[in-house]
């Protein structure tokens, strides 16, 4: 029986909004109003942050019944409201092996996760401070206010929390160091300049639970005795910025920020600085330069930011996810947090899993979870059950990890031993139709644009790597190219000014290490084994396999495919631009790739 305590949670994360979630929410509200369910007995429609499974969005969930619907459209509103008391709408439920499942945890995508940072994301209304407080928000802060800075730092040290932006520096150590300098003003800065291709962990956290980030910053400020904090948020994250600003305003109004934090003598002011769109400004010292209004270039970090950071004052810079982990550490204690994870990497990590995996989206798992669990158990495996080839972790700083290493636990240290890194949490899954040389070229090309260009190794090394990799992809590779790439890469790792430059060659060096044969095929045989590099590949249709469905013909942007319905189609090689669209479109694997004769 409906009694008015029910809630309909509509995921309004960036991904679901793109799929029409705002329309769904409006349609649901209209439907409820039409049925007089918005008056005395009101059912709230809550626009939440990212619930995680972006690929199946918009996602709608009924509470407290825990009925989860996927791929909901505005047209489904009536049926969805009907099902509040009746039978669930079958076509919107999670389906596996012909069976339908109603609850969130019936879906292994959610069941295998362990949400700590994201525990409120997708459940609360990010624009409501009351929602956050109702779920234990600001309890951590209240406890911190009864503690000395030293006690707060000890609690964080006990948790074993390490910087989740990718570097993995122990947060407690950083805070203790910053607290040791008797020099004011001090600053606490939140790094929300997430920029790795395919990564959206921090954006979703800021959108979905902005108060957790703010609470983390206040606790950090108490620990190092800072009275000013800045959130540096990338320009593209308009929604995150709006939600954070809204949360800051609410926190001021509630007496949580400002001259007197919850009635105590402590004060803290928080403000937002918009990033200018430079990837390199995610690097700590470049970020601070940018806040100061200077060109976003890193400086040598032999004197650490905790001593001389923003405006040459002691500064703590933490990543969004690290800060969002702080409230729960203070609330439940560092030891509880440290129960999760591995010996040296405690707690959980949020990943943005994208690419050729069946279920893409936001995933939070304990540190030490294997890549295989992430890709196959949570992600559901590769699209079309094609063979797995590699997973690219950590964005342009990371590496490509082959199948042989899928059972490695993902934490701060293990992947580094293999030349890759966990990084900030971006993960791009690739199947057998990904060319690893082309992947390396893509990242080098990205960095050619996004390096700050200040130091020689990074700027000039990338310029030359891009030229050599482009040559290899286009059939002009030469003997000795692989060795030259390695030589430049190793120099860059040692001699670059900042972490961006030192890790920039990782995509190249790891693909050479694990997929050297692909490089050799490109250089020696002028062929692209994955059938991706257009200059080396030609496409043909296998007449025995082709069923004449016409999908490839419709997908072809160059009008190069012809054929009668239900008869084998053919590709006109003079028109074909080797884009691969036909191969992607074909459901029966009838499009073949072969070496293009030179």
């Amino acid at each position, binding site marked *: 029986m409906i009694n008015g305590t029910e809630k309909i949670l509509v995921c309004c994360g960036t991904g679901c909004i793109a799929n029409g979630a705002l329309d769904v929410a409006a349609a649901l509200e209209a439907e409820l109003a039409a049925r007089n369910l918005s008056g005395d007995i009101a059912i709230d429609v809550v626009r939440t942050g990212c619930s995680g499974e972006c690929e199946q969005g918009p996602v709608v969930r009924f509470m407290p019944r825990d009925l989860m619907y996927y791929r909901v459209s505005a047209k489904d509103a009536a049926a969805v409201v009907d099902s509040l008391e009746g039978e669930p709408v079958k076509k919107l439920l999670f389906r596996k092996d012909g069976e339908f499942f109603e609850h969130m945890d019936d879906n292994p995508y959610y069941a295998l996760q362990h949400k700590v940072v994201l525990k409120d994301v997708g459940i609360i209304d990010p624009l409501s401070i009351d929602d956050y407080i109702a779920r234990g928000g600001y309890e951590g802060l209240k406890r911190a206010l009864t503690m000395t800075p030293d006690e707060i730092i000890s609690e964080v040290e006990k948790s074993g929390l390490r910087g989740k932006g990718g570097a993995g520096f122990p947060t407690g150590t950083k805070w203790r160091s910053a607290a040791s300098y008797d020099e004011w003003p001090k600053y606490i800065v939140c790094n929300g300049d997430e920029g790795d291709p395919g990564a959206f962990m921090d954006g979703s956290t800021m959108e979905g639970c902005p108060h957790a980030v703010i609470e983390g910053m206040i606790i950090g400020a108490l620990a190092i005795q800072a009275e000013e904090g800045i959130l540096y948020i990338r320009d593209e994250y308009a929604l995150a910025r709006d939600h954070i600003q809204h949360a800051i305003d609410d926190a001021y109004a509630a007496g949580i920020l400002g001259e007197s934090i919850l009635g105590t003598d402590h004060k803290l002011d928080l403000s937002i600085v918009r990033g200018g769109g430079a990837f390199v400004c995610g690097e700590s010292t470049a970020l601070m330069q940018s806040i100061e209004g200077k060109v976003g270039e890193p400086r040598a970090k*032999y004197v650490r930011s905790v001593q001389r950071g923003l405006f040459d004052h002691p500064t703590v810079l933490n990543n969004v996810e690290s800060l969002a982990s702080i409230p729960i550490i203070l609330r439940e204690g560092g030891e509880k947090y440290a129960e999760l994870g591995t010996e040296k990497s405690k707690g959980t990590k949020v990943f943005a899993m994208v690419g050729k995996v069946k279920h893409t989206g936001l995933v939070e798992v304990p540190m030490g979870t294997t890549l295989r669990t992430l890709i196959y158990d949570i992600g559901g495996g590769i699209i079309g059950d094609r063979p797995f080839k590699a997973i690219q972790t950590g964005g342009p700083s990371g590496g490509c990890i082959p199948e042989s290493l899928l059972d490695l636990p993902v934490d701060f240290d293990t992947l580094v031993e293999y030349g890759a890194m966990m990084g900030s949490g971006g993960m791009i899954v690739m199947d057998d139709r990904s060319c690893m040389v082309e992947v390396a070229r893509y990242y080098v090309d990205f960095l050619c*644009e996004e390096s*700050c260009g*200040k130091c*020689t*190794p990074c700027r000039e090394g990338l310029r030359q790597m*891009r030229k*050599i990799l482009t040559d290899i992809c286009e059939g002009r590779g030469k003997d000795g190219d692989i060795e030259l790439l390695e*030589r430049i890469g190793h120099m860059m790792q040692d*001699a670059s000014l900042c972490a961006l430059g030192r890790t920039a060659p990782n995509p190249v060096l790891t693909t050479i290490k694990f997929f050297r044969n692909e490089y050799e095929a490109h250089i020696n045989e002028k062929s692209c084994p994955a059938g991706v590099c257009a200059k080396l590949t030609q496409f043909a249709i296998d007449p025995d396999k082709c069923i004449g469905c016409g999908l490839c013909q419709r997908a072809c942007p160059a009008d190069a495919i012809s054929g009668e319905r239900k008869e084998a189609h053919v590709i006109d090689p003079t028109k074909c631009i080797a884009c691969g669209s036909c191969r992607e479109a074909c459901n029966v694997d009838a499009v073949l790739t072969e070496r293009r004769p030179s």
Partner: protein
Amino acid sequence: MSENVNKTLTVTIDGIECICEKGEYIFDVAKRNGIYIPTLCRHDAFDNHRACCRICIVELKQRGRTKIVTSCVYPIDGECEIFTQSDKIREERAVLYALLAHRAPDAPGLGQMGTALNVNGVDRLVTIDNEKCILCGLCVQACSSLGTGAISTVNRGVDKKVSTPFDKPSVFCVGCLSCANVCPTNAIEYVETETTRTIWNREFELQFCDECGTLMGTRESVAFAAADVELESPIVCDECRKKKLANEMMITYRFV
């Protein structure tokens, strides 16, 4: 931290024992002891080094660990061994020279340095035609420390260059030539006629001494320097001003 200032340390650089103070940069200690470390972006005129050419990298062995550091900005913080010419440093410096020589093929000297270091595979690298600038940033440092701030590095990544805002003539430029004079590769071009100087797309009128006719600089640079010490823009050169002053003193004290 303060109790450690002025603490004297002994370090070895290439096997030579050197005395230094805690916090001194490796480069400075090496230089004082006659040990040559090559660099392209460091200039004695500035305290803040950009540390961007990376040519001055050295190997640092401390507490059993070896790492590569940039000697021009690495403050020595304890006893250590430093190697400026290890095999690894020579190899990486060679690659750096090769990269710079291909970036700026017209920069004097770079090509020879690369050749001297025996860089293989050089012909494989791409060059930028007619480029002289190695982006050491000294010009930008000179301009900003003068207080003019007319030029800066612009763009990112491989497209980075030094320029005025939007490549337009800068209202802040005084045509003083500090940028061109500090440039190690003569990459900053300017044109002078009998009465004008053109640099960074802006033409300046030259000013000559009212007394002796010596070139004093552009009108803007002379006025800028005077304004810096709160004086009116002079009309005579320094030499003539001194002569005039000496004359006046002679008359005043009746030495004539």
